[in-house]
């Protein structure tokens, strides 16, 4: 009696799957190409041969090429790696936060991550007189993490714990408060205002591997947590009751998701400054490419975020040579009009 019926996927399902795989593949190829270009472009343009040489020659072995080696190994490689790591983290966390709050305008700043980091930066500058990003980057991360924990804690008190609406509004309330505190401090202390304006612009340059390795570690941890929750987000978006009926542990799933978002967005924000718009933008574009299935949407958003941030960083290096435009500024100036055009043409569905 027991005959297993092989369910053949419908032509549409095959088509959707083909489109998703093709989209991810294309993004990966573009990312590799952009990474290669990123190593060559800058105030001192390098030829492919010079880049190759700079990558694989130890410093000091050849006097003529030391300069190139130095540029590639200490400037171009770190910022390229950071742009990719930060882009993936922001893209993934942007898609996750929209999934958890079920709100199409939620961005990674919603959990208070950006304002928490900003407040930590201005506070330590006033308290300890720090002046270099190297000194305050971990305080920024602590501030971001603390804000995320406080928001989730407040949203989880009592019944209706961590519901999308409560989470979004509690995050907004905490963010509003922290932003006010940041403004109050920066208005009274010019050194912190000076640091804040550069930090807020959002840039992937100027930090070395001693910052990038920990950011990478937090990002990998966050990504691992994020990947485990993706099936649960799909169910959560059917409504809490349905999700519970399908066996999702709501509290656990939300807690893991929030920790993942805080790790991803917090580490990135600490290293680069707030680039919240990137996450919002790529989450919508990724949803358009892959459809609403978060198992595909989130990886696509991650790759897309890396591509966009890397390309914007390259554009920022080129347009005002020999000066540079911060990647965060370019993301908004170039990405937003493009995004608005897609919105206007009706490409996006609600979450």
């Amino acid at each position, binding site marked *: 009696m027991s005959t297993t019926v092989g369910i053949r996927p419908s032509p549409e399902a095959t088509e959707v799957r083909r489109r998703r795989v093709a989209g991810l593949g294309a993004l990966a190829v573009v990312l590799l190409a952009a990474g290669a270009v990123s190593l060559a472009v800058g105030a001192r343009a390098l030829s492919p041969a010079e880049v190759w040489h700079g990558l694989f020659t130890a410093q000091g072995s050849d006097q003529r090429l030391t300069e190139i080696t130095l540029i590639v190994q200490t400037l171009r490689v770190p910022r390229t790696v950071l742009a990719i790591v930060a882009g993936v983290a922001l893209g993934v966390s942007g898609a996750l936060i929209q999934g958890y709050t079920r*709100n*199409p*305008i*939620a961005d990674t700043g*919603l959990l208070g991550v950006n304002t928490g980091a900003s407040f930590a930066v201005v506070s330590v500058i006033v308290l300890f007189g720090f002046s270099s990003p190297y000194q305050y980057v971990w305080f920024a991360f602590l501030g971001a993490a603390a804000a995320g924990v406080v928001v989730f804690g*407040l*949203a989880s*008190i*009592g*019944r*209706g*714990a961590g519901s999308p*609406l*409560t989470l*979004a*509004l*509690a995050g*907004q*309330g*905490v*963010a*509003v*408060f922290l*932003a*006010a*505190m940041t*403004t*109050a401090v*920066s*208005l*009274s202390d*010019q050194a912190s*205002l*000076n640091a804040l*304006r*550069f930090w*807020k*612009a959002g840039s992937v340059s100027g930090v070395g591997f001693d910052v990038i390795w920990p950011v990478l570690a937090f990002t990998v941890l966050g990504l691992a947590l994020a990947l485990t929750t993706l099936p649960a987000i799909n169910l959560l978006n059917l409504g809490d009751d349905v999700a519970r009926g399908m066996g999702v542990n709501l509290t656990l799933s939300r807690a893991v998701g929030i920790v993942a978002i805080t790790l991803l967005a917090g580490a990135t924000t600490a290293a680069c400054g707030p680039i919240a*718009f990137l996450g*919002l933008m790529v989450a*919508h574009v990724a949803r358009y490419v892959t459809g609403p299935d978060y198992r595909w949407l989130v990886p696509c958003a991650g790759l897309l975020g890396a591509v966009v941030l890397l390309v914007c960083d390259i554009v920022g290096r080129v347009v005002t040579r020999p000066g540079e*435009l*911060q990647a*965060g*500024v370019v*993301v*908004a*100036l170039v*990405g*937003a*009009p493009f*995004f*608005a055009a897609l*919105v*206007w043409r*009706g490409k*996006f569905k*609600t979450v």
Partner: protein
Amino acid sequence: MNETAVKPSVTPGLRLGSASFVWRPWMVFVTLLLTAATFLVFCLSIGVGDFPIGLSQVIATLLGQGERVDEFVIMDLRMPRALAGLVVGAALGMSGAITQSIARNPLASPDILGITGGASAVAVFLVTVSGGAAAAIVDSVGLSVAALAGGLGTGLLVYFLAWRRGIDGLRLILIGISVSAVTEAITIWLLVTADIRDVARAQAWLVGSLDNRSWGEVWVALWCALALVAVVSCVAFQLRPLHFGDEVAAGLGVRYSMVRAVLLLCAVLLAGVAVSAAGPVPFVALVAPQVAMRLARYPTPPLVASALTGALLLIGADLVARTALPVTLPVGVVTAAIGGPFLVYLLVRANLKGR
């Protein structure tokens, strides 16, 4: 099947001619309470200062029966500031309530309709770029008027960019966010390249302030706000059905496209009035409707209660900023520092009660 315990919870209606209303005692009570509280804080705010005036004298003076000294201090010196706070708070509260209702999104606010971003970018440009045309503009029309023009221009740009066979809530806020991101990037870039002293001046303008208001500015803001509120009150009764979606609204006889367009234009202009009177005071428009909703136990942002909450928040914050704090802070900062935690408190309390 035990249905004896089920009691119909239909609230009785009020009928006046062809108009009918749902009688909501709690809503009316909260609205009256907010009105009384706003009036009280308004009078207190007028009485406080280097020359303190008692509450009874303030009320007597407002009714035209005060002494000459009090009348001079109140009407000439303190009234513009207090009235500006009242108008700005009410305008922002109502503007936020309309925006959140139309976008059907509690995170929406006129801040993302471009007003604030546009005004900030123009103001920071005029403050940081010295000399040439920028100085000429500031000299001839003044910083706040130029900023208002920038804000309204950006707001209308968002409005028309989002227009495609009518206004759609999601399209509007996504385009608003995009345009705001551009203006914010411009602001940040201007701040990064500017001299640090100009940055401090620009930052002070960016948080909004009620200092040094003149009667002229306040009258303009007051009359504009009243005119806009009049328009809103003519269309507002058609706002509720919009919450059920376009199809249901159309079925109920609401011309949703027209209603949305008119109300949204009013929201943009109300936010513009607020910017012109106090600069871009942040967060009031976002927080006030959500607080009012929870105070009034109403399912959608109530317009009148939101306006009152906004006004109360702003003049209350101004009072706190002038009396209780050791350092002088702009009213925008204090508003956010009070409004944010109060919203969180309301959320947590509601969750604890399981409502």
